[in-house]
C-alpha cells in the first residue's frame, strides 16, 4: 500500500480501530441490534418460496418454488388491494401536498405573530394524537345520527336525509385523504415555512420596487423560493407510494367498504395473521417491499440529478 506517503494513514486500519475502541464499543452493540431487527428478518423471505407450516419449521417445510407468487398474481383480491393502495396513496399525496403548501403560504402572509403562533399551535395538535383517537373523531364527526357534518348539511338544506358517509366506497377514499389532511397539514407545513424564512428579504423589496402586489410576490418570489423543497419532497415521497397508511385504514375500514379499503398491508394482515397463510402473506409483503425499494432507488436517482442541477 502507499500508506507510507501519507502522514494521515501511517496507521493501519486496525490500529485506527484500536485507537477508537471506545467509540466502537459504544456503537457496536447497536450495529448488531440493527442487523438482528432489520436484516435478519429478510431471511424469513425464504418462506415465500415454501409452504410454511409452523410445526415443521422453516427448514422442514416443503419448497414450492414460485407457487405462492403465482397464486398471488392470479388472485383478483390482490389486484384490488393494489388498485386501492395506489389510488389512496395518490389521493393522499396530492391533497396533503396542496394543503401543506397552501397553509404555509397563508401563515407566511400573517404579520401578527400572536395570531400566527396560535394557529400554528392548533394546527400541529392532531399530529400528536394517535390514529385511534383521530379515527374515533372522524367516526363521530361523520356519524349519521349525531355527526356535525350531517347536521350542518341538513340545516343548510343541502341534504334532506343524513348520509352514511362511512358506508360508501368512493366516499371512503376521500375520507382517508381528508382526515389525513386534517391530521398532518400543520405538521407538514413546518418544512415549507422553514424554507420560506430562508428566502432573501431583498427579493421581496426588489419585487415591490418593480411594482409587484402581494399575490405577485407570492407567485414570483415565495413559490419559486420553496420550489426546490417541494420537488425534493415530492420525489422522495414516490418511495412511499405503496404505503397508503396502514393504521389509518385498519382503524377506519368497515365491512361495507371492504372493496375500497383493502390495501396491500391489510391484505398481508388478513391472510397472514388472521388466516395463518404465512407463506402467501410473506410473498405479498415481499412483493410490496421489493417494489418499494425499486421506487426509492428510482426517486433517489431523480432527486440526485435534480439537486445537482439546482445547486450548479
Amino acid at each position, binding site marked *: 500500500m502507499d500508506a507510507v506517503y501519507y502522514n494521515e494513514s501511517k496507521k493501519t486500519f486496525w490500529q485506527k480501530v484500536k485507537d477508537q475502541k471506545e467509540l466502537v464499543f459504544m456503537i457496536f452493540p447497536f450495529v448488531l441490534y440493527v442487523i438482528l431487527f432489520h436484516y435478519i428478518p*429478510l431471511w424469513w423471505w425464504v418462506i415465500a418460496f415454501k409452504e410454511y407450516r409452523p410445526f415443521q419449521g422453516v427448514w422442514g417445510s416443503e419448497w414450492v418454488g414460485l407457487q405462492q407468487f403465482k397464486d398471488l398474481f392470479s388472485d383478483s383480491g390482490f389486484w384490488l388491494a393494489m388498485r386501492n393502495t395506489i389510488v389512496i396513496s395518490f389521493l393522499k399525496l396530492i391533497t396533503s401536498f396542496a394543503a401543506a403548501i397552501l397553509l404555509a403560504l397563508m401563515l407566511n402572509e400573517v404579520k401578527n405573530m400572536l395570531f400566527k403562533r396560535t394557529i400554528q399551535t392548533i394546527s400541529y395538535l392532531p399530529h400528536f394524537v394517535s390514529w385511534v383517537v383521530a379515527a374515533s373523531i372522524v367516526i363521530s364527526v361523520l356519524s349519521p345520527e349525531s355527526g356535525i357534518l350531517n347536521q350542518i348539511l341538513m340545516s343548510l338544506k343541502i341534504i334532506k336525509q343524513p348520509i352514511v358517509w362511512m358506508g360508501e366506497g368512493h366516499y371512503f377514499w376521500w375520507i382517508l385523504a381528508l382526515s389525513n389532511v386534517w391530521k398532518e397539514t400543520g405538521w407538514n407545513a413546518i418544512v415549507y415555512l422553514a424554507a420560506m424564512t430562508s428566502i432573501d428579504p431583498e427579493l421581496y423589496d426588489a419585487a415591490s420596487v418593480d411594482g409587484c402586489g402581494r399575490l405577485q410576490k407570492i407567485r414570483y418570489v415565495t413559490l419559486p423560493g420553496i420550489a426546490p423543497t417541494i420537488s425534493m419532497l415530492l420525489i422522495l415521497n414516490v418511495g412511499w407510494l405503496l404505503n397508503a397508511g396502514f393504521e389509518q385504514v385498519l382503524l377506519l375500514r368497515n365491512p361495507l367498504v371492504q372493496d375500497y379499503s383493502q390495501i396491500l398491508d391489510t391484505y398481508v394482515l388478513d391472510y397472514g395473521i388472521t388466516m395463518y397463510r404465512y407463506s402467501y402473506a410473506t410473498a405479498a409483503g415481499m412483493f410490496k417491499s421489493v417494489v418499494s425499494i425499486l421506487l426509492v432507488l428510482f426517486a433517489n436517482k431523480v432527486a440526485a440529478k435534480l439537486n445537482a442541477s439546482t445547486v450548479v
Partner: protein
Amino acid sequence: MFRKKTAEDIIVDLVVYISLIFVGIVTLYPFLNVLAVSFNDALDTVRGGIYIWPRKWTLKNYEIIVSNPQIYNAALVSVARTVLGTVLGIICTMFVAYPLSRKDFVLRRPFSAIMVLTMYFGAGLIPTYLLYRSLGLLNTFWVYIVPALLGMFNVVVVRSYIESLPSSLIESAKIDGASEFRILWQIIFPLTLPAVATIALFIGVGHWNSWFDVYIFNSQRPDLSTLQYELQKILASVSMQVGRNPDYQMGAMAETQQVTPNSVRASMTIVATAPIIMVYPFLQRYFVKGLTLGSVKGE
C-alpha cells in the same frame, strides 16, 4: 418604508385571516366536541345537539373508566412503556448518534450505511412476527420496548445537532484525558438537550400512541393491554356496526350503567389524549427546530 395598504393588500389579508380562522376551528372543534360529550350525561347525548359545551354535566363517563380494572391497568402499562421506552430510547440514540457524528471515526461510513439503509426497507409483517416469536418477545412487555429502542430518524436529528457543535470542544476534552463515554455524557449530552427534547417528544408520543404492536403481538395478554388498544377495541365494536345506530348497541350496558359506547369512547379519547396535550406546549419550541434539522439539513 411605509406605504398605504392597497385594495389587494386588504383582500389578501381578509382571505388569509378568515381561512386561517376556519382552519383553526375545523382542527380544534372535534376535540372540544369530544370533551363536551365526555362530560355530558350519556342518555342526554343520544338526543344530539352537543357542540362544545355539555348540557347535562356528569362525571359518570369517567367513573366507568376509572372503576374498570382493565382500563386502569392499561393506563399503568401505557405510562410504564412510555417512561421506560423514552429513557432507554434517548440513551440508545445518543450511543449511536455520537460516534456517527465524529467525522474522524474510522467505521463511520460502513456503520452509518448499515443504519440508514433500514429507513428505506422492511422485511414485512410476517417475517417480523416470526422473528419476535423466535426471540420469545411475543406476549411480553418487552415487545413494546426492545424493537423500538432505535429510530433512525431520531439518530439523524441528534447526529446533525452534534455536528453543528464546535469540534474543538471534543478535542480539548480529549487533551484533558476524558474518555469518550465521559465526553458524550458530560459535554455533548447537556449541549444537545434541545435535540434530545425533540426526540424525547417523538419517542414518547410514539410509545403513548401505539396500539398496533399490542394488537399483533400481545392481544392474548389483557394484562399488557394499553389505553390506545382499549380505545381501539371500543372503536372496532362501533365500526362493525356502521349503518346501524351505535348509540343503542350494548343496550344492557346503557340500562344498567347509564353509559353508551359513544360516551365511553369520548371519555376514553380524552384520557388517551390528555397527557400529550399537557406536555406538548412545553416541548413545542424545540420540535420545529428538530424537524427542520432532520429533514432539510439531511438533503
